[in-house]
């Protein structure tokens, strides 16, 4: 009996924890879980018979065993959601660092172009690579996106 509860619970924990954390539904779900955990903890402490009765219900020998199973599922969910959250933060950090680096480089290139006006013709012609980027300001406004987008 407990097998049929535990296996889906583990799968559900993994899937739910790895899903997007930005949805309102997900946030609400986590708050409900937190509230239920508190209530369940209080109940289990106040009347230890209840876990035992639940254990009998699902075919587990002892209430403590049931608690252990539930704890395992909770840990799996927690690890999954932490890693998802960590990855999201890392993605944001990478984007932020990249934009900082590109913006700083662009500033330097523009400053360089102003301080040292384009070199005279012969060199520019011999140089097969054309630099047109530094003098044109970014048209896409991508640096603002980072600040406001996420």
């Amino acid at each position, binding site marked *: 009996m407990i097998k049929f509860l535990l296996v889906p619970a583990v799968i559900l924990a993994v899937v739910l924890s790895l899903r997007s954390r930005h949805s309102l539904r997900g946030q609400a779900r986590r708050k409900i879980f937190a509230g239920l955990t508190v209530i369940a903890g209080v109940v289990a402490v106040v009347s230890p018979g209840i876990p035992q009765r639940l254990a009998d219900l699902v075919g587990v020998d002892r209430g403590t065993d049931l608690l252990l199973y539930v704890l395992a599922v909770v840990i799996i969910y927690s690890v999954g959601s932490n890693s998802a959250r960590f990855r999201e933060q*890392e*993605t944001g*950090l*990478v984007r932020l*660092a*990249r934009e*900082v*680096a*590109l913006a*700083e*480089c*662009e500033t*330097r*290139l523009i400053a360089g172009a102003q301080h040292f006006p384009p070199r005279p013709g012969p060199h520019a012609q011999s*140089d*097969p*690579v*054309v*630099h*047109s*980027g*530094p003098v044109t300001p*970014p048209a896409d406004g991508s640096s603002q996106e980072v600040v406001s987008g996420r």
Partner: protein
Amino acid sequence: MVESASAAGRLPATAVVMPVYNEATVVRGVIEELVGLGFTVIAVDDGSSDRSADEIDASGAIRVSHPINLGQGGALQTGFEAALRFTDAKYVATFDADGQHQAADLLGMIAKAEEGGYDVVLGSRFLDGKTEMSALRRLVLKTATKVFNRGSAHKLTDAHNGLRLVSRDVAARINLAFAGMAHASELEQILTQSIYRLTEYPVHVLYTEYSRSKGQPLLNSVNILGDILAHRVSTWRRA
């Protein structure tokens, strides 16, 4: 060989993206050679703690400095974006900063792309016997290549070579999600889509005293292999 190539042909505008992480002792020479050949070098200083940034500035490359270390994949993605933003290069290449790649190979890859109209040219160490490596390293790399090749449109002979050339359009479509180790397989997964015209070019990788001491000990091949497998599993889950 380098002279003949630059003298013979007009080099199509090519930006060379070079991730740099604590390579102060060698990076300047590597960049100066490429700049001398007419390449625009975009050196992405990935939060180096040594004098790499100064060396890059002295070498004539465009320097993009990450405020923190993001890993090689993160540096490559930054480099691609910088190449698109700051240059109008027709091709974007990736090149290692430690001197293990040959500028002559890059020139050959450009020539091949021009002649054959290829979108993607990947360097391969296994197309001919020029690169010397230990039997164990060869085995690990071959295995990695086999694992990678499963289910992709193009079959490659070398899955992890840092010398690559892509057209501007392809570079614009690259968006590496993995900043860390798995970027190489991710990048190749992007580049080997069947819509691109892809070819390989035999390159000669010099495992110098320096590159041996620095990077890629054999254990790192294990990391790469693990990353490919993890990547395969995770993309399979998402698909």
